[in-house]
Structures are given as C-alpha cells and as structure tokens.
C-alpha cells in the first residue's frame, strides 16, 4: 500500500489528498450549528473569571446566542479553509486546529451553561483540568521515553499504581510527603525493571508483559491494602499532602497565574520534566542514542551503542517517571492509598502519548485535553447542567477513538518498537 503511494508520488509529483481533517471539522461544525440553532435568543451564559488572588473575580454575563453564533461562524471559516487546504493537497496547520477546538469547546460550554443560575467557574475549570492531567502527563512522558527506545510500555497503569502505593506508604510511615515523593519513582522503576527484564532480556511480547504486569501490580497492591494496610490502619491511613505553592509574581498573571503557578510541587516537577524531555529526546546525545535503538537497533549496535543496555536503562527511567506521576493519586490529593486508585489512567496516558504523536509536546496537549474533559463534568455538575455526566466522561475516550482512526495516520511510531533485539 505505502509502496504504491511512494511510487505514485514519484511519478505524478503530487501528494495524495486527505479528506479526514475537513470531514471531521465539518461534523463538529455541524454540531456547533445545531447548538446555535437550538438556543433561544433571550438566554445568557454566566462565566466567572478568577483573574488572580489580588484582582479577584469578575462575573461575565454573555448573550448566549450572539457569542456562540460568532464562535460558530469562526468554526465555519476554519472548516471552509480546511477544505481549501485539502483540495490543494496541503496539511492544515495545527494552530488552525487549536483555534477550531477552542471555539468548539467554548460553544459547547456556553451552550451548556446557558440560562443557569450559577456561573461557570472558568479559572477553576482550567486549573482543575491541569491538576487532573498530571498523572496522564507523567504517564505519557514515561510512554515517550520507553517507546522511543523501542519498548512498548503498557504497564504505565501498573507503574502509576505502584508509585501511588509506595508514595502513600512511605509518606505515612515518615509523616513526610517529600520522602513519599522520593519513593514514588522507586516503585515505578521497579515495575520498569520487570518490564525490561521480560521484554528485553526474555523477548516476551511487550504488550503481553505490560498487561500482565498491570494485573500483577493490581493484585499485589490490593492484597497489601487488604492485609498489611488494613491491619495497621493507625500507621498507614495517615494521609500526607504536598503543599500548594503560589509562585510569587508569576501567580499574579491574570487567569494563567492561578491556573499554572498556584499548584503543588508535583505540577512544577511535571513542567520541568516535559521541557527537559522535549529537549533531551530530540536535541541531546542521549536522545539520539535512544531513538536510534528504537528506530534501527542494528544500526545503533553497529556504531557501538549497547542496544539492550540502553533499552533497559531507559525503560527503568520511564518506569520511574510514571511512578512519580503515581504520587498524584495519593500525595497530591492528600489521600491514603485506596484499591485501584489509578482507575485506568495509565491506559489513557498511553492513548495521550499516541495522540500526541510520540512527542512530549504533543502528549502534553493530548493529556491536557483528557484532563479537561475529566474536569468538565465536575465543573458543569456544579453549574447544574443536564448533560449526563457519563457522556462527558465518555468524551475523551471517543475523541481518542476518532483521533486514532482519523488523525494519527500521519504520525509514525518508532520503527522497531516492540521488537526484541537479539544482539
């Protein structure tokens, strides 16, 4: 299939037209038009914007029909443009998609809260979304590291859970959230070790190991929860919480300040981790070497890179990153450990990584999207919106299905991920 495409391109000199993007945008635009058409003219939507701790909160009352009408028009514009771009065999620039997505989400939000007594708490919607996406982002970063080195990491779920468990236990034993935070990556790295052992040393299929490791960690933590933790409640059910830090200066930026810079330490670590990984993966010697192991292990071996050693070390590193993310469930939320706390977030993180095109940057955006959808049902629930929460919860999964089926055609996984290197 791809062979014939390359041939055609050589002979004709034209890229194939791809209709996926305009079709998807058209469908979403249609939905926005339906929202607009079903809105009575006299309704208004209340939105509360908390600018910052000093500036206080403003309550905006927007005329619903006018506002979402304008936003829908903007979407129509982007959609028309996307058809034009597709006809001329080009790719729609990603910021058009971002504009479109923002407009669509705003249309939906304003439509949903139209005519309600309570305003939509916009700032807390965003900050909550960022907070909820923390484990997804750490998980997706772990996925990036492992996949670029050629190991498929399905055990992110288990690593998150193990991290949450050890962080809570160590935190409770020491009454110190910081020591708990140090313990979280250790637990994740242990699972990473197991993954590396079976995937790299014994050539077991990576997806199988990942799935089974998730079961193992679930069973293990559930077991310890119902025995050791349950028998010594006074010791282990102590919840410790990472303090919230408002960064002076930065947290005073309107809207962005309270969203980005009034969070706890784990969130700041996440910023640093994403930036470092984005740079290191694509600009450093370490990144080049590990990507070589994922793309073409034999070539990497030929130039003297120890493929399997690199794979093992980076898989363990990936596990540690995911484990750190696991601290979110316990330390960042100030909770003691509970059974199956990670609740499938590891799988979502994996999807976020794939949606983000195996890049930290993209995975960050995708994970934020999931976090946003997750928090949306909280925020809309407060407002008292009639949309069933189940559909809001379902949305990110459906988006992922659409994205995997439609949008991800272009991005490419590391060529040799999931294969054993029998050097």
């Amino acid at each position: 299939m791809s062979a014939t495409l390359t041939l055609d391109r050589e002979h004709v000199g034209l890229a194939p037209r791809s209709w996926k993007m305009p079709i998807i945008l058209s469908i979403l635009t249609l939905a926005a038009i339906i929202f607009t058409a079903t809105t009575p003219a006299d309704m208004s939507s209340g939105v509360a914007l908390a600018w910052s701790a000093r500036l206080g909160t403003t309550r905006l009352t927007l005329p619903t029909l006018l506002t979402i009408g304008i936003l829908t028009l903007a979407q129509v514009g982007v959609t028309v443009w996307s058809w034009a771009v597709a006809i001329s065999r080009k790719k729609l620039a990603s910021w058009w998609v971002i504009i479109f997505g923002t407009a669509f989400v705003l249309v939906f939000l304003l439509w949903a809260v139209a005519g309600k007594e309570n305003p939509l708490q916009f700032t807390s919607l965003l900050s909550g979304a960022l907070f909820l996406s923390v484990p997804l982002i750490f998980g997706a970063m772990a996925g990036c590291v492992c996949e670029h080195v050629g190991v498929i990491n399905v055990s992110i779920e288990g690593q998150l859970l193990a991290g949450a468990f050890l962080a809570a236990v160590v935190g409770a034993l020491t009454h110190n959230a910081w020591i708990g935070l140090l313990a979280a990556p250790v637990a994740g790295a242990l699972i990473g070790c197991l993954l590396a052992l079976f995937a790299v040393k014994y050539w077991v299929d990576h997806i199988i190991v990942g799935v089974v490791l998730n079961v193992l960690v679930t069973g293990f933590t559930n077991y310890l929860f119902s025995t050791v933790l349950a028998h010594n409640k006074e010791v282990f059910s102590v919840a410790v919480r990472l303090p919230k830090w408002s960064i002076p200066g930065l947290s005073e930026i309107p809207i962005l300040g309270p969203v980005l810079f009034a969070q706890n330490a784990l969130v700041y670590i996440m910023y640093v981790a994403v930036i470092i990984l984005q740079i290191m993966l694509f600009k450093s010697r370490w990144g080049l070497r590990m990507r070589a192991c994922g793309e073409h292990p034999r070539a990497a071996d030929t130039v003297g890179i120890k493929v399997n050693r690199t794979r093992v070390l980076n898989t363990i590193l990936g596990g540690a990153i995911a484990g750190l993310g696991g601290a979110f469930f316990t330390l960042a939320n100030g909770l003691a450990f509970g059974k199956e706390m990670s609740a499938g977030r590891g799988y979502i993180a994996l999807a976020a990584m794939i949606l983000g095109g195996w890049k930290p940057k993209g995975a960050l955006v995708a994970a934020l999207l999931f976090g946003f959808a997750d928090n949306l049902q909280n925020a809309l629930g407060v407002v008292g919106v009639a949309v069933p929460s189940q559909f809001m919860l379902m949305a990110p999964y459906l988006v992922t299905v659409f994205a995997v089926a439609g949008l991800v055609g272009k991005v490419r996984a590391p060529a040799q991920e999931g294969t054993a290197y029998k050097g």
Partner: protein
Amino acid sequence: MSDTTSITPRRAKDATSAATSAPGSPDTNSDAKPPRSWKATLARITNTTWLTSLLAVVVALVVGAILIAAADSGVQASAKYLFARPGDFFGALGHSVGGAYASLFQGAVFNISSSYTVADFVHPLTNTVSYSVPLIFAGLALGIGFRAGLFNIGAQGQIVMGATLSAFVGFTWHLPPGLHLIACLLAAFIGGAIWGFVPGILKALTGANEVIVTIMLNSVAVYLLSYLLTLPAFRSPGSFMPISPAVDASARFPHFFGSAIDLGFVLALVAAFAVWWLMERSTLGFRIRAVGESNDAARTAGMSVPAAYVWVMVIAGGLAGLASTSQLLSGSSQQLNGDIASTFGFDAITVALLGRSKPVGTVLAGLLFGGLRAGGYIMQSSTGTPIDIILVLQSVIVLLIAAPPLVRAIFRLPDPDKRAKVKTSRRHEVATVAATQPIATVESTAAAQPVGAVASEEVVESDSPGEAPTDAGPGDTDDTVLAPSETEAQS
C-alpha cells in the same frame, strides 16, 4: 554436504533478516513492518513443555506463599525472634501458608472434611466449573484475535455490551422458556459483536491500532452502561440503585442435577469446539490464521486482510458477549449492574495466553483460573487471605510461561529447544555420514563451524563420527558444540 542441510537454513534465514534490516536498503526497510514479536511469544508459549508450565505454577505458588506469610501477623510476630526460636517461625509460616492453600484447594477441587454426601463432596468442583464459564468464553474470544495477529483488549467492553443487550431482552421481552433463552443468548452475542465490530472495521479501514481502540471502547461501554442504568427503561422499579430488573425465569440457564453447573458450561464447551472447527477446519479460519502469520503473504495470496480483521473482531466480540450470560442468566442475581463484567475481560487475557490461544488449552486454563477464583473466595472467607492474591498468582504464571528461559534459569534446567534442534540435525547428519564417507564430514563440519569456534570443540566434533552411528551423542556435548554457531548466527 550433509551439514549444509542443518546449518545453511539457519544461515540463510539470518542473511535474509540481515538484508531486510540493512541500512543500505531504505525502501525495504521503511516498508517492512517490524515483526510482531508477540506472535513469536505466542509461538514460544505454544512450544513450552508441560514441565515449564508446571514449574511456573510452582513459582507462582511460592511467590504467593511469600506474600501470604509476609502479611500474616503470626509470622510477623515470630519473625522477630526467628533466631531464638526458629520453630515458632516455621510453625506460623506453615500454618498461614498451608491453611490458605489448603482452603484454596478445598474451595476449588474437593472438600474431604465438609460432609459425606456426594453433592457436597463435588460442590467445590462444580463451583470451579461455573466460575470458569465466562473465562472460557472470553478466553476463546481473545484467542481468536491473537491468532489473527490482533491484540484485542476489549473483551471487558464486549462483555458489558453483550450483558446490556441480553439483559434488556431478558427482562423486557416475555417469551416462552426455550425461545427466550435463545433470544437472550443471541442478544448477548450481537451486543458483543457490535462492540467488536467497531475496532475491527476501524482497523480494516484506517489501520487504527486495535489495542488503543479496544481500551477506549472498554471505558465507553462502562459509561454507556452506567448511563443506561439511570434510565427508567433499565431501572428496576422502585429501586434507587443502578440495577436493572431481574431477567425472566424463562431466560435462565437450566441447572444440572441441582448443582452449580448449568447449561452455560455446556455452551462454553460447544463454543470451544466451534472455535476449533472455525480455526482448524473452515476456510475463514484458514484465512484468519494466514493473516495472523503474515498479512503480507495473505494479501499476496488474494485474501482480504481487512475482511479477516472484521470477521475476527465480530466473532471475538460475540464470544465475549456470551461470557456475560454466565453472570446474567445463571448467577445469583440475574440483574444488570455496573459491575456485571467484573474483571473477566482482563482475566481472559491471561486465560488465552496460558491456553496458548487454542480451544482446548483455553478450556483448561479457564478451569484453572476458575478454580483459583472459586477457591479464592473460600480462602478469603475461611482464612482471611484476600482473594486479590489470585491476581498475583495468575500474572506470575503467565509471565513465567511467556518466558521459559527464566523458568529454566530458576530451576537450572537445560534448554530443550536447543537440544532438540541439535539432536535432529545431528541424527540427520549421522545418517548421511553412515551412507557416505566419514572423512568428508569431518572437513565439512570444521568448515561449517564459525571461525571463532574453539579448537577443542572441533576435536570433539571430529571425534564423534566414529561413535556417532550408535549414539547421537550426549546432549551436553552437543550443546557446547553448536552453541557458538548459534550465537554467531544471531549476532
């Protein structure tokens, strides 16, 4: 010469694999899909001897024993004075571990001490059988996917959707007995099949990764069910809980001899036979297997790979949907609730892996894990050991069976693969040698040996033809002789 038959194929294979991944050929390289290594894993699982499986179970039980002991307060207390009175420690150890495993066994197989009636005696076994039914159905479903090269993690969602549709038919339609049951079974199959069709068609049309799509659809199914349970149509009248009305009595499985075994188990066995027939005897099954072995080859042979993907996912989804009937049409409540699928979908992955994706293996693996579950509940109630330990046992067993070298390393066993290979090639060589002149063999063997082969081994090798016709040679010698060429061929 004779040696070329044994050594050349390996070399040739290596040469082709080297060529496909050679840096000089970017076209082949970018087009060649990386070999799906889990196919190799499944192949390896298939080749595992029963000994490895047994040892894997032993290791799993040891791991479980360590966990049981570590969590036991008696063991913890006696460990504090371990060196003063080791007897206490080992007594406590035996008490906790032995007690737990004894009740696990009694709950899963038979209970001698319970009473004297036959029904009570076999009661645990019938429990095991009934717990195994959903695992067998879902395991069969996943096994078909594995053999087609599809890693379907979506059994969980398919079970949920099968249960939803089946329950709806079960409590809204009021049909005569047999007919109602058939309608419910069909509904379960269709519900699961629809949920399997989606990833199948997406994979076929757009190449969407089935792992991601099925994982996502699992969650979608759970939320969809929890939404449906808020609707009046699905809500049990007068109930504030998200629970549906019970399925009509006319749609329930008949039980055999008043035991826990019901028609579900028979249907599971029938399904296993049907899957065997489908995969081994039908054209569709042949296509499915061909696509699983190499979809490029299947496409070249004129088979439709997308069609195979869709069929596999529809059948797998339907089978997984049927797994829901063991809860819905025979369980204790017969009501649809949010937890109807329990963790069967995920447990079934381990069942299918342990069963090597074959129907018979899946039935046996389903019985084993069903037994662990049945026994686990008894263990939990009688000794207080949480049933979660079963998950640990299951995952350790599957991990070890997927990695036979690890089991061999733990028990210091020789590598049976290597020995078998060497033996056949040696026998073949020896037979030909006997027919021709021995001197040539010595030369060809020496020539066939890699340059780096140790001289002393060549001596062994050149000595052997004299005595070889009577004896294929002790395995250990053979291992050392051919081991270097093996490693050379791989590196």
